[in-house]
């Protein structure tokens, strides 16, 4: 409902403003002269020609089967999970719609099976509808008859959403339940997830060093900077991001390991951000070239061009113009979930400090991830509006969080040291974390 309302509001506001944007939408027609001209590159399947054909055939077979038996829950759930996996890999939000379509017979039902509500929660949180996602997850967890693996997944997803929202205590409680007796029957992998989740939350609350050691131990690595072969990619990514927050140069190797295990768009972009901070723009272009269909990839490519050739080079300008068009299109459909990245776009590519700050602030209003902190701090500094970053400093004082990237003078300067928290309740809360 809120989406509809927001869309209407946006439309009402846009009625005048969008008209010129629309004129531009009337883009020129093309009539390719040759039959063998390649007109579009589709999201690529892995493997050689035969494997690609097989993958495509499998997708088609799944869709056909689902069309014949739309009410078969197992089939529908499998199709939805596959779509979500593809979406994560390619960073393509269309797959969220495909997952939703697969589950259409149950999608709007209040009495949908818990597995369906779990997918619904995943789709909602991917659309930045965090509170709606929490409603779904709480409903799953409130039911005593839900299968344990489904519960565990709901618990973990819920902790992830709470962490994005900056509700660390809530998230921590969920992670602790995962390592508790309730889920013991599910074995080591759930326990590992829970411990990693606790460690990451601790790292966001002033315990970065012990958290780094815990994550290294979980990954089976002999020391904090090295990478154990065979450790899951997500654990390497978690460690890489922590190393990045600590200003630890081992982040590079960890990002590379994470990417090798899990070459999805999120990991690519996380690595690219680290490379950009290290002024390794050429590596960014090499890493991301060809994947610009995903907006976050295009942003990093444009930022890399800027570092390499300057803001006014044709490469930078073309990439920025295309990105601007995509953000305009998203705004037109009422999608305001791009705030974090759009703020960087306005600040670093368009040089509009006011717009950048406004976007960073409204984004901070919704989500509190380390990347959101960096964006708000940079936008406030560029706009010479120290007061605008005050909610961020307040948040860091309360949580005890630190981030090398928040230091004045760039990522390699002295880390920002937040003033000590004064609330005894908070002190107590912090003592309870490892």
């Amino acid at each position: 409902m809120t989406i509809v309302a927001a869309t209407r509001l946006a439309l009402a506001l846009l009625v005048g403003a969008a008209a010129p944007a629309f004129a531009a939408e009337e883009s020129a027609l093309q009539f390719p002269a040759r039959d063998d001209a390649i007109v579009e590159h589709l999201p690529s399947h892995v493997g050689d020609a035969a494997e690609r054909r097989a993958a495509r055939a499998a997708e088609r077979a799944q869709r056909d089967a689902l069309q014949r038996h739309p009410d078969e829950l197992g089939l529908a759930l499998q199709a939805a999970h596959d779509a979500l996996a593809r979406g994560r890999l390619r960073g393509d939000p269309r797959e969220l719609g495909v997952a939703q379509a697969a589950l259409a017979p149950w999608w709007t039902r209040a009495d949908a099976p818990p597995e369906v509500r779990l997918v619904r929660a995943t789709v909602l949180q991917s659309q930045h509808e965090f509170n709606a996602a929490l409603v779904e997850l709480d409903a799953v967890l409130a039911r005593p008859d839900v299968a344990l693996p489904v519960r565990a997944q709901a618990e973990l997803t819920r902790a992830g959403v709470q962490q994005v929202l900056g509700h660390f205590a809530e998230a921590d409680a969920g992670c602790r339940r995962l390592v508790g007796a309730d889920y013991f029957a599910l074995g080591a992998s759930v326990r590992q997830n829970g411990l990693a989740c606790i460690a990451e939350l601790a790292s966001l609350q002033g315990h970065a060093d012990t958290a780094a050691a815990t994550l290294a131990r979980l990954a089976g690595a002999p020391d904090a900077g090295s990478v154990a072969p065979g450790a899951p990619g997500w654990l390497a990514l978690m460690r890489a991001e922590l190393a990045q927050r600590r200003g630890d140069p081992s982040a590079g190797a960890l990002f590379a390991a994470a990417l090798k295990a899990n070459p999805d768009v999120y990991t690519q972009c996380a690595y690219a951000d680290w490379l950009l901070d290290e002024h390794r723009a050429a590596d960014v272009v090499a890493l991301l070239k060809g994947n610009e269909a995903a907006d976050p990839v295009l942003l990093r490519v444009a930022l890399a061009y800027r570092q390499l050739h300057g803001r006014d080079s044709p490469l930078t300008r073309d990439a920025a113009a295309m990105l601007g068009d995509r953000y305009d299109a998203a705004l037109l459909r009422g999608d305001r979930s791009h705030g974090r990245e759009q703020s960087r776009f306005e600040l670093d590519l368009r040089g509009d400090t006011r717009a950048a700050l406004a976007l960073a602030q409204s984004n901070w209003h919704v989500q509190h991830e380390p990347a959101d902190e960096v964006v708000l701090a940079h936008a406030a500094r560029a706009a010479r509006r120290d007061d605008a970053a005050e909610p961020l400093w307040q948040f860091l004082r309360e949580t005890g969080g630190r981030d090398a990237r928040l230091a004045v003078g760039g990522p390699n300067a002295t880390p920002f040291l937040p003033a000590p928290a004064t609330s005894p309740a908070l002190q107590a809360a912090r003592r309870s974390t490892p």
Partner: protein
Amino acid sequence: MKRLFLALAALILAAHAHAHKASDAYVTLRVDGATVDARIDIALRDLDRDLDLDTDADDQLSWKEVRTRWADIAALARTDIRLSADGARCTPEAADAPALTQHSDGTYAVLRMQWQCMAPVQQLGVDYRIFATTDPTHRGIARVARADASTLQLAVLSPGKGWHRFRLPALPVAATASAAAADAPAPVAQPEADTAAAEDAPPWSFPGFVREGVHHILIGYDHILFLLSLLLPAVWTRSAVTDPRTGVTRTRWLPARNLRLALTNVLKVVTAFTVAHSITLALSVLDIVNPPSRWVESIIAASVVLAALNNIWPVISEARWKLTFVFGLVHGFGFASALKDAGLAKGALVGPLVGFNVGVEIGQLCIVALVLPVAWSLRGTRTYRGAFAGGSLAIAGVAGLWLVQRAFDLSLIAG
């Protein structure tokens, strides 16, 4: 179970939120009479998912792979976009030659096709179902306008959410915004049922046109001065007065004794003005008579001059309503151009016409309600007599200047 936990690990990362451009199609509908010219841009990636265009499965689309499937692409658009004009279904025609275009996120197929409707379109219904069953997060970014680009409306169409109505007669600005923002069409299963719903919700905004009418008369000084010139003497009667000393009998303005008589006077004048301008307003809006506006504006100015001078040197005193009627006809043409300026398109005329006229009457009654009590209570005073003569002269003077500048296209004073 093991499989699930592979997904589980990914889920915690999925919470680190990323957003990207989702699937949009761009739907431009240009309404020209009973014909709707459509341009529909649909992403090739989306079409490939539903129609399996990549026949050689090499993860890229050649022009041949797209071109040879054009009939299927056009059929998808024809089936999943349904149009209705004022409740009656429009018929899609064959699509133009295959064409492509680039949007910010890739290559799109461009379908150019026409729908034929039964009659000139006042309200265009769009039932958008593209990808409704395969990607409900898809949206149709619709832009609907008349062929002359007037009445541009935007909407974001969610597939499979029923009929979205675009009201095409142009509206006063404020009404356009609210119409475009109201993107909640009544869920109507059949377009035939659409008709009733269309009548429930008029395609134009009646209050919008009423406001437009009130606004027009209140900012139209020429109309106000014309009315004022006619109202000022309504509280008097023209009587023969015999000078007791000289024995000469002259007709003079005397304060009316009978309020009813005065009110009847006012009523006659106001009614004559209303009837007259309604006639010409309708004639002009319906395009039956369309005199050049310079003549109309000049004659309106002249009518004010004559009405004001008639107060000082009465030619017509008893049946002023007749004078009012004749000049009211001209004022009606003036109102018509204002109504047209407000953006009235050809089509649903009666509603806007009545609405606008009601607005004019309301504005007119406001003026009467303000002027008449004052005039009545002061009618016997010297002040009023002075104001009457001076006011009438002043009005005649101002209107005379208008007459000159309108007739000779000069700019002397505002008005």
